[in-house]
């Protein structure tokens, strides 16, 4: 039997009543209530999903121009590539140092018209100036984090990355901050209703 890969929130999702499926070796929630309902909550207000299974690569070194479009620029010689598992990865020139950091981060997708309001309760980053495809590094829920904005269509959406061991802590803080807007978790299936990638 192949080894099962679990996100740090696995037991939290179990307790929340999630229905699990296999996703490239990871055991992930397909939905918590109903996928369509979760998608509606996202489109109407705000919702959050645990996407820790996303492939993440830490790339350091003198970058070619193509890397700017393929990844998130964290510093002059520091990039973060995020891809769904199984997706094609960019070609890396030998001058680059690439380290797989998929396991290093817990990753959450916070999406919806109210996602900015929730984010403002979690981080001092200037959320208003964080436009689509921009990224920032700051304290998020009191731990070092990265925020990557990648909208779903015209719905604002943010990937929040924290070091994996803070996963449950950060998830709790996000749910608490989103309580005002009736935030709810969403699973894999909900994204299909929104045309998002999984």
């Amino acid at each position, binding site marked *: 039997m*192949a*080894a*099962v*890969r*679990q*996100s*740090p929130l*696995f*037991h939290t999702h179990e307790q929340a009543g999630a229905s699990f499926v296999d996703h490239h070796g*990871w055991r992930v929630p397909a939905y918590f209530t109903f996928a369509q309902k979760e998608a509606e909550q996202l489109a109407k207000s705000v919702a959050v999903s645990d996407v*820790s299974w996303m492939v993440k690569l*830490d790339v*350091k*070194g003198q970058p070619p121009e193509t890397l700017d479009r393929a990844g998130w620029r964290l510093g002059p010689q520091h990039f973060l590539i995020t891809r769904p598992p199984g997706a094609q990865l960019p070609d890396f020139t030998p001058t680059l*140092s690439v*380290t797989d*950091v*998929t*396991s*290093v*981060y*817990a990753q959450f997708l916070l999406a919806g018209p109210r996602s900015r309001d929730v984010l*403002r*309760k979690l*981080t*001092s*980053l*200037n*959320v*208003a*100036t964080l436009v689509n495809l921009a990224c920032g590094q700051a304290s998020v*829920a*009191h*731990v070092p984090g990265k925020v990557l904005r990648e909208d779903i269509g015209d719905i604002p959406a943010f990937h929040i990355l924290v*070091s*994996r*061991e*803070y*996963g*449950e*802590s*950060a998830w*709790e*803080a996000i749910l*608490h*901050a989103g*309580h*005002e807007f009736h935030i709810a978790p969403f699973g894999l299936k909900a994204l299909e209703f929104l045309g998002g990638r999984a």
Partner: protein
Amino acid sequence: MADGSRKFTFEFDGKPVEARDGDTVASALYRAGRRIFTRSFKYHRPRGLLCMAGKCPNCLVNVDGTPNVRSCVTPVRDGMQVRHQNAFPSLESDWLSGVQRFDWLMPVGWYYKTMTHEWSWHAAEPYIRKVAGLGVAPEPGKGSTDYEHEWRHAEVAVIGGGPAGLQAAFELAQGGAQVTVVDDQIELGGHRRYRKAAGGIPSQLIAELRSMPGVEIISRAYCFGLYEGNLLGIVQANPHAGAIERLIHLRAKRVVIAAGAYEVPFPFENNDLPGIMLSTAVQRLIRLHQIKPGNRAVVVANGSQGDEVTADLREAGVEVAGAITPDQVLSALGSSHVTTLRARHGEFACDLVVICGPRVPDGGLLHQAGARMAWNEERGAFLSLGLPANVSAVGEVTGAWLVPAIPLPPQDLAFHKRSFVCLCNDVSTVDLRDAIQEGFDQIETLKRYTTLTMGPCQGRMCQLSGIGVCARETGRSMGETGVTTSRPPNPSVSLGALAGPRHHPTRRTPMHYAHEESGAVWMDMGEWKRPRYYKTASSSDERASVEEEYRAVRERVGLIDVSTLGKLDVKGQDAGKLLDKVYTNRFSDLKPGRVRYSVLCDEAGIMLDDGTISRLDENHYFITTTTGNLDFVQQWLEWWLVGTGWDVHITNLTGGRAAVNLAGPKARDVLQALTACDLSTKAFPYMACREADVAEVPALLMRIGFVGETGWEIHFPAEYGEHLWKKLLDAGKLLNIRPFGVEAQRLLRLEKRHVIVGVDTDALSSPYDAGMAWVAKLDKIDFIGRNALSRLSGTTPPQSLIGFIMNEDAIPQDGAAILVNGTLAGRVTSSRYSPHQGKAVGLAWVASASAREGAEIEIRVNGGTARARIVPDAFYDPSGDRLRM
């Protein structure tokens, strides 16, 4: 204006009170007939509404468990439970008001005058603490609900939603600026909300503002401080149903202060009686809450300043019995409420005295921004001068249009011990005069000696009058006397708001739930949660559990979660060079497939951290650090890399790798069942490392021996944490494998005399002090600390780290003192009962002169001392054979 039609109920001291939409707690209570709202701090005098603006201390109540709430600015909610403060048994009859008869025992500065011996203060303090203070803090866990934090950014922040602030925001937004308006009332409009003569609320301007993109309005939010870099501290009340307060950090490129001016009282005999109110308070009661403030009023005003409120009173059906000027006032009469106002030319029976007092620009934020406060005679106020480039002021806060209400310094001041300047602390004009005569004649020392301005109102009500009295009594001008410093937070902020949501970041390993299932008893290691030991059916307490875990490792096999170790991935052609530079050991000559232990030292040769370094490949290393020290080590490495131009890339993998230590004479049997990697000593010797799959999980295996038995430290991707942990326990079931916790690990490593940097060493420890000379390779090309270590090499340090075995049956505690010949000679760092030795063993720092092998020392234990002897070797398997099986 709020629609006053909806009625609901709240409780005051357990009795129901009716309220309407738009009511504050104070207005609802006043409408219901309440006139005494609290008792004063020192004399427990009855106090009623004075300012209706959140500026004075007279209306403080306890709301739903939260003490010291300003009821005049707190919107009332259905079901709210309000209780009075500082009066027993009731507000109407407070036993402690009898203390006024003993006021002669408590002149200004009476603490300093009576309690001149330390013992007298210690004797009096418990009683003073019981009666002092106003509100009572809620019990932990009670009386507090959720608090939030929020971070906002603005191009321009406008503080104050009155006419000046609204106009400024409008013009700025029209010019294309992004503007955030912060206002502390339930609706915008500032003083236009209650001053009819000023023209009413500018509704159209407000509607236009709300429709402009780029304009944000934050209501029911007060700004308590302006900090460096134009960071504004703001508290918003009840932002939504689930939160009581929200602390907003607002960073603005430019700040416009439009905080307005507020009214203050002036001193005369009995000026603190309920029924004596400021004119703006009366206007608020009438206009905002449709309340008739009294039946028969006297208006005290200079010139025509009282005309507006007189018209308002008449409109509200209040009989205006008289209008007099401030210099005409002699005293107010009444016991629990004003009944008469005595003036020079006659007496007025009344139940309401309306004071048209001086206006003070609310310029605290300007002062904090760096403005100088300068007295302006024409305006009768201290105005802010010299603002920095990105801070400006508009409206009444600038002092424009202010007209003095009373002469300052006061000319005709009748000193009376019930003529109050500071209402918060019951400081009278007599107290101020006496203090000045005693020599406290500078405003800052006068403040500290009398506690003027040091109460809940933070000087809002009393600073102006206080400066007036000081100026008069010292013969100085107002400007020469000056102001006391305004510091944030002003107004005050609840600790709950500052603390924010109850959220403490916790770090959990990937196997957290597995430990929970196995009966882990948790301990905190910084933010990490780690199993201290595991409770089982067979062991009765911690000592028994730890010993069982210990035995499992020594006799069979045990498994511990060490995922908390810091882990760094270091790649690059010059990686070896960097490691040679920062570690005291050599690494460029380490063969791939080998592990080496080393320490980091600073330039003075002090040990900063220790860890293992595995060479995975020509240009690829894997470093482990002490739990909790990763951030420091990574910064240290990056620091020394700067400017070298070396090709080295460092990535933090701490959260991304689960790690376990499988140890014991049977460890190999367990591990071999799960991996194809040859684990024999021949193929996999001690201090070697291999990359291999274990139970289908890609892993790095390191054969090292912190606990002193044959074993492997296994590092693998964190998402496989539970999977591999369970597989290992399953594979070891027949061998009776035990998971073991931090306590057992501490004992196991202590028997092996393994030092823990940061526990057995401190900020003064070099490798030589700690008996680890072998770790510093002085013949190496330069490394950080080499110079210092060269000088230290061969010298005798003042203290040495030694190992000891007890000669008696006593177990010293970590940190216990060590005596040699009766004098203090050191301290224990780690000490545990050693099952192998049958006695307690440990590590300790001892003066080097006494640190000889075999020497006897005494250790403080259980109130007495116990004898121990110094031994040079490990207490278990000193030759290390058990590691190499």
